[in-house]
């Protein structure tokens, strides 16, 4: 059955005369995180001597798929085969034995060890007499091969290196070989911290590696990189593969279209805009730290302001700076009303795991819940019940632990915390990450309703359709505002064009 698929392949084997062997193949892979379907039955394969470009929006399912190939996640349904054999008990160490390596976005180097010592961690064979020399030679040779003039010493402590150099070490380490074979390297945004010169060196090396019979999966948001270097491009959207074709069959516009979807989205929020008063009081004026051209983010009462662009390009930073500026004055940021924040990363930024739903909602409003010196349990319960009704938190009892709720309902509780407070400005840090569509629609309505009452929302989102709810959208790139769109100018293509714009 594997052979049939190889024959169906196109593009890749055009470069090579020999028949290419399948390195890894997933059939019907599905993955759920709680109620959210991250992967909806994906078929995916890589053959030897092929560089597969994998593109898609944030949350399209690329990372989940790659974690499965690397063995760090197991699919809820579907099968994995490596080198033509079905793998029933696939794991990270099994993947390593079979020659599959992965360079994850989050770095997996020990900052307290040297470059050579970090190399040793991935190679059990580097031990015994003279191991430090051998490890240093191994990693130095690979660094020299990939990044000539890299300027990294094998004895540098990783914690002292810049992010870019750490990424170079991480990439080079993935290509070092001692005992185990090396067939496939997954590169997840390998160039995100590299400048154009080093990124070019890396991609040239990838081409050489592939020409020598190795395989690569290249995930990148820089579409030009993928178009120029991949043999075949797989496009994902909403947990599915929506296109897979030879790289030559794509151009930039086609990729953007396939990634974003072409069907017209209904503009649910359009009618709400008309009701807005012309001149409302200023609530926030903020300038990103790295903004040299004097562009400000401006938000007035009753406005919903969208912060768009790729994940991690300075949107959260700006929100946090605005949040901080509400407590004590900060240069370049003007905030004129109390602020509350709705966290996107619930576990690390939002939830208090020991507490009930009601307590989790009340924490932002403790001063108002007091009766004299003491917090009134009655008022706390009233606040919780009010918002349970208003935002539809599905639970029999608001005194239950917060973790008794589903992810979406936990997120609603965080919305209730912010909206139930005295804050006139609500900052939203991509709060709909991993939330089901039903919850989303309910929250969208509530946000518009609250904005109509005069509240200001600053809404960072990685999901483009959410921007339809906004009056005004700022697109971020590399920590700066690069575009400033009104709702009427807003199209998905425009946002993708500005945020994917390749650096000249």
């Amino acid at each position, binding site marked *: 059955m594997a052979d049939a698929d190889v024959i169906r392949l196109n593009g890749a084997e055009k470069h090579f005369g020999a028949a290419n062997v399948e390195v890894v193949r997933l059939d019907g892979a599905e993955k759920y995180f709680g109620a959210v379907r991250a992967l909806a039955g994906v078929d995916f394969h890589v053959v030897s001597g092929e560089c597969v470009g994998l593109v898609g929006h944030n949350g399209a399912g690329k990372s989940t798929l790659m974690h499965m190939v690397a063995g*760090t996640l197991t699919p809820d349904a579907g099968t994995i085969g490596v080198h033509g054999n079905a793998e029933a008990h696939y794991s*990270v*160490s099994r993947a*390593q034995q079979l020659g599959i390596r992965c360079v994850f976005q989050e770095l*997996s*180097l*020990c*900052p*307290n*060890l040297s470059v050579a*010592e*970090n190399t*040793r*961690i*991935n190679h*059990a064979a*580097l*031990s*015994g007499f003279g*191991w*430090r020399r051998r490890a240093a030679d191994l990693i130095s040779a690979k660094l020299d091969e990939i*990044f000539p003039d*890299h*300027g990294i010493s094998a004895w*540098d*402590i990783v*914690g*002292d*290196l*810049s*992010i*870019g*150099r750490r990424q*170079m070490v991480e990439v080079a380490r993935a290509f070092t070989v001692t005992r185990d074979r090396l067939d496939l390297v997954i590169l997840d945004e390998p160039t*995100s*911290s*590299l*400048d154009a*010169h*080093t990124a070019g060196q890396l991609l040239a090396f990838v081409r050489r590696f592939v020409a020598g019979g190795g395989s690569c999966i290249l995930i990148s948001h820089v579409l030009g990189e993928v178009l120029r270097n991949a043999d075949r491009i797989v496009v994902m959207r909403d947990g599915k593969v929506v296109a897979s074709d030879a790289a030559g069959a794509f151009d930039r516009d086609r990729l953007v279209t396939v990634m974003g979807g072409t069907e017209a989205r209904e503009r649910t929020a359009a009618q709400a805009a008309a009701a807005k008063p012309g001149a409302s009081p200023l609530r926030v004026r903020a300038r990103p730290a790295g903004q040299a051209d004097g562009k400000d983010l401006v938000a007035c009462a009753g406005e919903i302001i969208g912060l768009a662009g790729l994940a*991690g*390009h*300075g949107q*959260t*930073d700006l929100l946090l700076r605005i949040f901080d500026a509400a407590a004590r004055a900060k240069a370049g940021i003007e905030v004129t009303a109390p602020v509350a924040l709705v966290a996107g990363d619930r576990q690390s930024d939002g939830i208090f795991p020991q507490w009930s739903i009601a307590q989790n909602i009340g924490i932002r409003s403790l001063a108002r819940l007091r009766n004299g010196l003491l917090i009134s349990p009655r008022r706390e319960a009233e606040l919780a019940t009010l918002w349970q009704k208003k935002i539809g938190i599905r639970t029999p009892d608001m005194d239950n632990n917060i973790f008794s709720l589903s992810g979406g309902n936990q997120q609603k509780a965080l919305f209730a915390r912010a909206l139930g407070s005295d804050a006139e400005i609500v900052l939203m840090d991509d709060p709909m990450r991993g939330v089901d569509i039903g919850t989303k629609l309910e929250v969208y309505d509530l946000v518009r309703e609250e904005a109509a009452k005069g509240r200001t929302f600053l809404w960072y989102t990685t999901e483009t359709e959410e921007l339809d709810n906004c009056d005004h959208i700022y697109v971020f790139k*590399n*920590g700066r505002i690069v575009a400033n769109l009104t709702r009427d100018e807003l199209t998905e293509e425009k946002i993708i064009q500005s945020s994917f714009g390749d650096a000249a």
Partner: protein
Amino acid sequence: MSAPIDNGFKGSAARNAAARARLLRGLLPALSLALVLAAIAWLNPRAISYFGFSLMLNLAIPIALATIAQMFVIAGNELDLSIGTFVGFVGCVTATWLKDAPLIGVAILAGSIGIYALLGALIHLRNLPSIVVTLGMSFVWQGLAILVLPKPGGKAPDWLLAIMSFKPPLIPFPIIAALLIAAVVHFGLMRTSYGAILRGSGGNPAALRRAGWSLLKTKIVLFALAGLFGVLSGMALIGITTSADANIGNGYTLLAIAGVILGGGEFVGGRVSPIGAVIGALTLALAASPLLTFMHIPPDWQVAANGAILIIVLAARVLISRRER
């Protein structure tokens, strides 16, 4: 969470600065030791002599060994609040069983290292806070010490006395011992291939597990090493004091923590330095009494000097780290 767009070449200046700051931080322990020595030399030149050092650094050996023990635990992001009473327990066993029935004595000490290893396993498997477990163990060791030696007394084995009163030519024994301890542990932890894994387990445990290493094993090894050096510390202590007392090591818990931190170690992240730890222990041993005696500062303020030195060194470290950014 910002996108650090870093130019590989612009980064080299920053990296050099970081390396320089690290070097400076690494020299800080040595610098503070030099400062204390200079002060002693200035106050009492006669102290800087073979005999003076033998006397002043006498107790530095057990302190250095206890500090190394604590350092192994800290390397794995844990903390041992029981090392002091453990040293006391070992001292009591050394002054009794090890002298009277050497085989049983050795078995007891080996068994106590085994208990340390078990503690490491327990802490890892049950995900327990090491502070509380070792706090409880500090009672256990103290209780056992009193059971072994209800009243101060006992006597060190003769061979141990002979070792500890060894008078090599030219260089006083405590200095040789300190150099030896530092060299051996430095080689073991900083130069061997498994030493890198041990330190990595404190630096990025998740990455280590992803690469297929057992974190249970690293924790057991680190705790067993702590037990081993605790045993050596207790034996060295009794070799100097000749007799034991169940409370003899109580002060070592805090001294050992202070020594590790003074020597450039950090509580989390696997950043420790054996050489620094030994230097930190020497600094504390010197600053504690000889320096202050020479300064005609009443013995009352000797403990304060330890605290002040800790605070000053940590403040210096903060200043250096500030310059780093």
